[in-house]
């Protein structure tokens, strides 16, 4: 089960408004390499794991990704808080405003709604962990793309932190893969 903690993993405090930047960052909420897909992937795959270290790592990283989902939602909300239709339009994201206004909706930066087709759950520990390592790299690459678009230090600090966590997760999944492969031999 899960216990909610009333805080984000690191403080999120964004002072400037920017609906366009919000629409880019939303991709890490419900996009193809975002935090929702990550948490759902790991929390689903863990049911078929038999090694304790695999069950634990997928549960713990999947839980951390849920916390990251919340941080992304908080960034998107703070970047658009109080902004109206005209502001969204000026920033070039009037289409998002028409469908969702100031809400947080799980979709990619290009507007495609979240899909479970972004992930697999295969009951094959090697196949699953290989996918997870690739997923961490793709999430890291998406954060790199966001950093190229972003010059607001309040946002950059949080995005850099989230990017760093993907690198750590990749490392841990790699160690798990070694453990699983040594059991096969």
């Amino acid at each position, binding site marked *: 089960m899960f216990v909610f903690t009333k805080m984000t993993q690191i403080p999120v*405090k964004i002072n400037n408004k920017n609906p366009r930047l919000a629409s880019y960052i939303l991709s890490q909420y419900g996009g193809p390499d975002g935090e929702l897909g990550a948490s759902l992937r790991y929390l689903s795959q863990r049911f078929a794991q038999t090694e304790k270290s695999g069950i634990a*790592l997928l549960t713990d990283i999947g839980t951390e990704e849920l916390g990251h989902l919340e941080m992304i939602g908080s960034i998107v909300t703070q970047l658009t808080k109080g902004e109206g239709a005209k502001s969204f339009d000026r920033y070039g994201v009037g289409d998002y405003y028409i469908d969702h206004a100031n809400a947080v909706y799980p979709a990619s930066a290009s507007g495609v709604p979240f899909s479970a087709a972004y992930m697999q759950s295969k009951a094959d520990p090697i196949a699953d962990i290989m996918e997870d390592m690739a997923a961490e790299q793709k999430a890291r690459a998406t954060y790199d793309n966001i950093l190229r678009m972003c010059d607001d230090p309040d946002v950059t600090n949080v995005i850099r932190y989230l990017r760093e966590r993907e690198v750590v997760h990749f490392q841990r999944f790699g*160690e798990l893969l070694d453990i699983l492969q040594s059991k096969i031999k």
Partner: protein
Amino acid sequence: MASNMNMSVQQLMRRVSEALFYVTDLNLYLDTHPDDTKALRMFAEASANAKACVEAFESRYYPLYATSADCSDSWEWLVGTWPSQKMQ
């Protein structure tokens, strides 16, 4: 921890998040290195420190866990900055 009483809500929250982050990071490491005695010792220390930081924050500001909410006259769980809000 004596200086806690002079810390602002933001300062104390930063201390809580640093303490809990250290616990999370060691937790993941131990999942794949369950016999690393040095990391085990570090985790025990980190987890005791995080518990103390959370208690200091909750007693001075507001509950971070529903189980810590004061129920004597109203539902204290509603108090404080939620992750969807900006801390003032």
